[in-house]
């Protein structure tokens, strides 16, 4: 190992300083990405712990493992942790933070200090949420529906809402930073049509962060005020309209699904091209589809409210618009598939995850079409069908993409390879475990099992047992990478600057990159994913 260590001892962002202060006060986007990586991984396992307890409770029809109040807190805290503290920051704040400045050939994001502030806001928000969870928890569901959250819940609603309010600003500042960076910091020659699709999709997600997040912030603020001062804005007993809360909540929270999935789509575009050695099929369409999803995503929110008491005519409008947002997602899937055609495909772990993503996202997307259909939605909304659908999109889609990206850029981030065999095993476990967990839930949902049920009629048991079994497989699939990633930090093979022989500016600088990213500003003279002119070298790790 001694020789290996010596070769790494080149000046890079990791060895630029060692003290705690050099990390906590860093303005280097790469170090901030690492800070995020550690924090969101912790939150992921907190949320995962809640999920395991939920699945264990649902093994039997009777509510016997935990009390109903505890169960309600578990699914609420699972949702809040996963949505606001893991999924939304996952790809943007970790991978985007690390890779986007490298991809555009800049030495950092446009506002490095704002970036650090984002992380601190995240930590403060997470602290509020965690303290609220530990000191009694919260039981409103992650959706905070009024008047339950404002009047009838006796749990720590205000503390949690405040946590989400604060983490919202973390998200806003990250999005703002990305937009400005992509607009103004691109290297000479890096035109919009040469921009990697990962940048496009993060740009689109950033638009939603900037435009949508403030609305959830003010909405949760009003919920907190309602609880504290009984201002009546959302409380029907005081003349307010609970549907207004739902409108404002979903105005953000539906597009927020695209904050989660769009950056994931960007990861898949990078990986599919790299491991099939091809330019992406229909670059412009994939790029513009990201923007279309971001914009159309704002027009469909009330499809969460078809049975909530909104007007029939509004329901018709929102149903129609909901179908439109499905189209650009379909376009992306078709283009990725076409990219594989006549490629030269290697089965490295990131690619396996990408295959998984394409398949599971297809299922997730198509079942979304079921929910856009008014008559079907009436039957399956608020049942396990919805639970299965959004887990297919968020876990089958987003978490798969996050894992794909983490494996793909791990050598860039750490300078070392992860163990390929173990990684393939875990990818397989995740895929199998995931389907076993969530596919039965589609059937449960159509059968009529409502979501958020602590106890359920006995005829639903078999499918629930299957689901719990799948969840245990899934858990193993997620713990494994945790172990081998840490292992690889010390024992992984040295990666070299470009282990995948990929194109893109991030691969043209050493791994790990120096603090200033590039010794001199790169000049781009080639199109995106120019694999045609990339000399064929053997990829570092087997295929």
């Amino acid at each position, binding site marked *: 190992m001694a020789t290996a260590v010596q070769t790494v001892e080149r000046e890079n962002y990791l060895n630029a300083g060692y003290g705690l202060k050099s990390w906590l006060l860093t303005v280097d986007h790469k170090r901030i990405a690492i800070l995020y990586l550690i924090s969101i991984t912790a939150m992921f396992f907190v949320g995962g712990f809640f999920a395991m307890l939920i699945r264990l409770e649902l093994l039997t029809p009777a509510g016997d493992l935990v009390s109903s109040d505890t169960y309600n807190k578990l699914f609420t805290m699972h949702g809040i942790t996963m949505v606001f503290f893991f999924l939304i920051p996952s790809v943007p704040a970790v991978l985007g933070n690390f890779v986007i400045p490298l991809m555009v050939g800049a030495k950092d994001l446009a506002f490095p200090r704002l970036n650090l502030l984002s992380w601190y806001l995240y930590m403060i928000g997470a602290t509020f949420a965690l303290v609220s969870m530990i000191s009694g928890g919260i039981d409103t569901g992650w959706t905070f529906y009024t008047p339950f959250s404002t009047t009838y819940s006796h749990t720590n609603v205000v503390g949690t809402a405040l946590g989400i309010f604060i983490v919202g600003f973390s998200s806003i500042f990250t999005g703002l930073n990305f937009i400005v960076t992509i607009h103004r910091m691109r290297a000479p020659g890096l035109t919009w049509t040469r921009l990697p699709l990962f940048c496009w999709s993060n740009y689109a997600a950033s638009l939603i962060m900037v435009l949508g997040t403030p609305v959830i912030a003010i909405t949760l603020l009003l919920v907190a005020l309602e609880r504290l001062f009984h201002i009546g804005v959302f409380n029907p007993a005081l003349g307010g309209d609970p549907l207004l809360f739902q409108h404002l909540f979903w105005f953000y929270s539906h597009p927020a699904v695209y904050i989660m999935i769009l950056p994931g789509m960007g990861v898949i575009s990078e990986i599919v091209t790299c491991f099939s050695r091809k330019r992406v099929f229909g670059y412009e369409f994939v790029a513009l589809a990201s923007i279309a999803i971001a914009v159309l995503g704002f027009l469909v929110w009330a499809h969460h409210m078809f049975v909530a008491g909104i007007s029939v005519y509004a329901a018709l409008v929102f149903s129609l618009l909901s179908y439109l947002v499905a189209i650009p997602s379909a376009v992306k899937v078709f283009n990725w598939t076409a990219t594989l055609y006549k490629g030269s495909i290697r089965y490295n772990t990131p690619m396996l995850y990408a295959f998984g993503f394409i398949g599971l996202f297809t299922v997730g997307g198509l079942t979304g079409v079921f929910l856009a259909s008014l008559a079907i939605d*009436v039957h399956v909304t608020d049942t396990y069908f919805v639970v299965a659908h959004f887990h297919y999109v968020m876990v089958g889609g987003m978490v798969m993409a996050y894992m794909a990206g983490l494996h793909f850029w791990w050598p860039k981030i750490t300078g070392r390879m992860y163990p390929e065999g173990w990684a393939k095993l875990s990818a397989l476990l995740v895929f199998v475990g995931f389907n076993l967990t969530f596919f039965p839930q589609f059937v449960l949902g159509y059968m009529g099992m409502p979501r958020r049920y602590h106890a359920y009629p006995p005829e639903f048991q078999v499918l629930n047992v299957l689901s719990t079994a799948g969840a245990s497989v899934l858990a193993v699939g997620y713990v494994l990478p945790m172990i081998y990633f840490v292992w690889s930090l010390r024992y992984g093979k040295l990666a070299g600057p470009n282990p995948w022989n990929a194109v893109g500016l991030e691969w043209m600088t050493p791994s790990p990159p120096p603090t200033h990213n590039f010794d001199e500003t790169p000049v781009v003279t080639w199109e995106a994913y120019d694999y045609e002119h990339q000399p064929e070298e053997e990829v570092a790790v087997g295929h």
Partner: protein
Amino acid sequence: MWKNLPLFPEQASSIAGQVDGLYFFLVAVSAFFTLLIFGLVFVFAVKYRHAVHLRAEQIEGSLPLELTWTLIPLGISMIFFAWGALIYFQQARPPRGAMEVYAVGKQWMWKFEHETGQREIDTLHVPVNRDVKMIMSSQDTIHSFYVPAFRIKADVLPGRFTSTWFHATKTGTYHLFCAEYCGTQHSGMIGEVIVMEPAAYQAWLANGGATGTMAANGQQLFTQLGCATCHRFDTQGRGPNLVGVFGKPVQLDDGRTVMADENYIRESILSPQAKIVAGFKPIMPTFQGQLTEESLGALVSYVKSLSQPQQKAAGGAPEPAATNQSN
């Protein structure tokens, strides 16, 4: 085995078959596209693997293909939309002449009251082959009335009536779930809908222990609360005469016209100034906080009874519900 693992809910309403039809169509189309994508990914991944296909062939893209896979999904989804919307439209409009049941949701039980005055909790008896309209409100948080076998669901809101309807086609006992999370015993807010032969239903009604019809109870309240002093059954009252009002458009003093439905009656009782009938003064006091959900239901039922055709035939007699005042 299949008794423990049913894969499909029973079809017990007129709408269930239609919803399932659309569902099968969606499943078929989705299965086709899923298999298409899975198949293509699998075939390409095997056929063009690096071991046998050393160099990739660069393809830029293709406008015709992009248009194909934009327009075909768009076309298919418009079929989904139209089909789903047609069924939804039926679901949203309760048919004329439906029998009405008032439901009040509260943490964590369902309270039902039939027009004839029978009350029940967590169990709802209805006759088979008859349109039943549910008029629902909540006295605390949001609940949702969900009967999977009927494929219907509607949120039950505080401060407002919502409604849904069904036409049961099969006798039997079906699950009733609360589908909107409502707190501690959310999963305990379940019950049964018992669909009976009409004769059995009549027999059940007879044993229901009703204390006067809803309309009669409403009429009593109407008198007790002093409504009758202004809302007289002639043109001399300081408030509008309520005979024949329900279900008709009402001209307001600011020029708008609204339909006198359940929510209009409710609002007129609780926020009288919101909509002033043309030609009247805004003098009615609010009854906010003085009436339970059940009382509101009774008052609405009474106002409705004032618009039943047979009463009008009786020459606008102001005592339409009197015959049932047994106590």
